[in-house]
């Protein structure tokens, strides 16, 4: 796609395994509601990149705006630059990899899938999550409600390395921390498993 002019709603709801290369930047919701396509954006992308995608791959060479991979159900969303606020918010599956940094509230209420940020993460990271697993290569400004750090096991380090090497260009991968040095963040599982008999746990998690 030539001269995309950062138009909104490019390549929305593509339901076939085609490859689309956008020679420039895209506006809001690029690759949103898709199932099966492989989309490559040579520039940057606006808000809601690949939102609610069922399967497929979306790669952004530049940066992504707010809410990238929001409500993602499956597939991969790869950002070579930075991602703005609310990356992977309400994601329900799939894999999100950001080579740079991400803004505040990444992973908010994320349900399943894997969220990887090679650089620094903003405030309220991984707030109120269910079962998404997050990895951060740099600093985390602050953890969100009920987000906790957890140790990576060797198999996980291997999987993380495999993912990063598979999805990031070698030069980019080399400039990022080793998989073993990433921090893992998961839900403390105190927020949602509220049971009236355990109200104090829930109350304290709020």
């Amino acid at each position, binding site marked *: 796609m030539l001269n995309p002019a950062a138009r909104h709603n490019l390549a929305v709801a593509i339901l076939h395994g085609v490859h689309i290369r956008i020679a420039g930047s895209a506006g809001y919701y690029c690759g949103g509601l898709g199932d099966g396509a492989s989309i490559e954006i040579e520039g940057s992308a606006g808000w809601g990149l690949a939102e609610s995608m069922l399967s497929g791959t979306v790669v952004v060479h530049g940066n992504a705006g707010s809410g990238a991979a929001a409500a993602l159900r499956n597939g991969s969303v790869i950002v070579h630059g930075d991602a703005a606020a609310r990356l992977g918010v309400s994601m329900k599956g799939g894999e999100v990899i950001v080579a740079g940094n991400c803004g505040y509230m990444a992973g*908010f209420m994320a*349900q399943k899938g894997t969220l990887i940020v090679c650089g620094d993460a903003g405030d309220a990271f991984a707030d109120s999550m269910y079962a998404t697993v997050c990895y951060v290569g740099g600093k985390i400004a602050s953890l969100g409600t009920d987000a906790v750090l957890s140790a990576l096991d060797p198999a996980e380090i291997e999987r993380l390395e495999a993912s990063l090497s598979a999805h990031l260009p070698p030069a980019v991968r080399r400039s990022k921390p080793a998989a073993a040095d990433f921090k893992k963040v998961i839900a403390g599982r105190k927020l949602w498993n509220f049971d009236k008999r355990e109200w104090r746990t829930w109350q304290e998690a709020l």
Partner: protein
Amino acid sequence: MAELQTSGIFAPGVIEDIQAKAESGLYSIRGFGTLRERRWATFDDLTFLPCSLTRIPLEGYREKCSTKTVLGTRFAKKPIELDIPIMITGMSWGALSFNAKVALAKGAASAGSSNTTGDGGMLRAERDNSRTLIYEVLPSRYGINIHHMREADAIELTIGQGAKPGTGGLLLGSKVSDRIAEQRDLPIGVDQRSPARHPDFLGPDDMIIKVEELREATDWQVPIFIKMGASRVYDDVKLAAKAGADVIVVDGMEGGTGASPAIFQEHTGIPTLAAVCEARLALEDIGLYGEVQLIISGGIRDGVDAAKAMALGADACYIGTASLIALNCNKPIYEDDYRAIGAAPHACHHCHTGRCPVGITTQDPELMNRLDIDQGAERVRNLLRAMTLEIQMLARSCGKSNIHHLEPEDLAALTLDASAVCGIPLAGTRKVFGK
């Protein structure tokens, strides 16, 4: 002995509430909708002015009075056409049982009406049994699936609900069964609280782009509804119309719910009567009344409420709670099971427990089987038909050969409040109060 006096301020219910909070440190959650006595203007504060000498009625039971309802004529290539103006509102599979969802779909289809998915995505059996299916896109995006969306006859972008404007949905762990967990991509048994905001847009300006995305995803074929809880209705309706909605749904504060904080049901939003009046005025003021259709919901009980809402400006009404009552909600059967959850027939608002005695708001297979799909569908169809007949009777008595011709002039206000809210003269005067 003189009767002991209880406090008007610290009434027994208030004392219980304070003591429950003192024990748990938590707010109370329940289903159903507002329970308090309505002291605000409602549809009951209006009466119809049928024809006598100044106007001529149509034959009450026989003469043709069209009920055909077309929604989405503004931009959609395929507006939806319904035989009647009463539609089944969005109620999630999760809040509702499978049997309830399918019974509602079948009942609505056989009455020539529509039903709506809900905060949990679409059920295959729901689609298969619907004639017209409206697919909700909610902030949670549970079960969001482009293929289901493309099978829908309309898309409803939900910003909020009347029972809990400004906050998200709620499904307590007891209802997050293995099937519901799978459908919503959640761990089994967790308490699920939906977000209050959409994940990929924040305000009215980016909502314009979102609406365009939904049109793009559905090839510009089907109508896009925008649903909101009634709060600043006059401004919100204008913004929704500006965002490109074909149809706007306004859900008043009397709106039902499967579960939400009790304080939201009682103390947020504006009443359905006020909401329909504000919504109509907003559309008139921007010159889109008639072009953008209006659906009203929240406490609609019968054809009378619906006819009044239509006379005030609605093109159609959604019903939720009334359709569940048709499925036996609050019916005096299985009384021990009502007692077991601290409720009683006619006083049950315990949908949040997941132990619905009549099989509607439960995921327990044994309880769900108490609701027979075909019998339930028949009752829903009967209710929709009876409500439509009531609207037709009122419309004919007002001299209308089409229920959509009902107008504010067909009504008189019975209270000063209703006169002021609706801009309709108080019966016995020629005055609109508050003007």
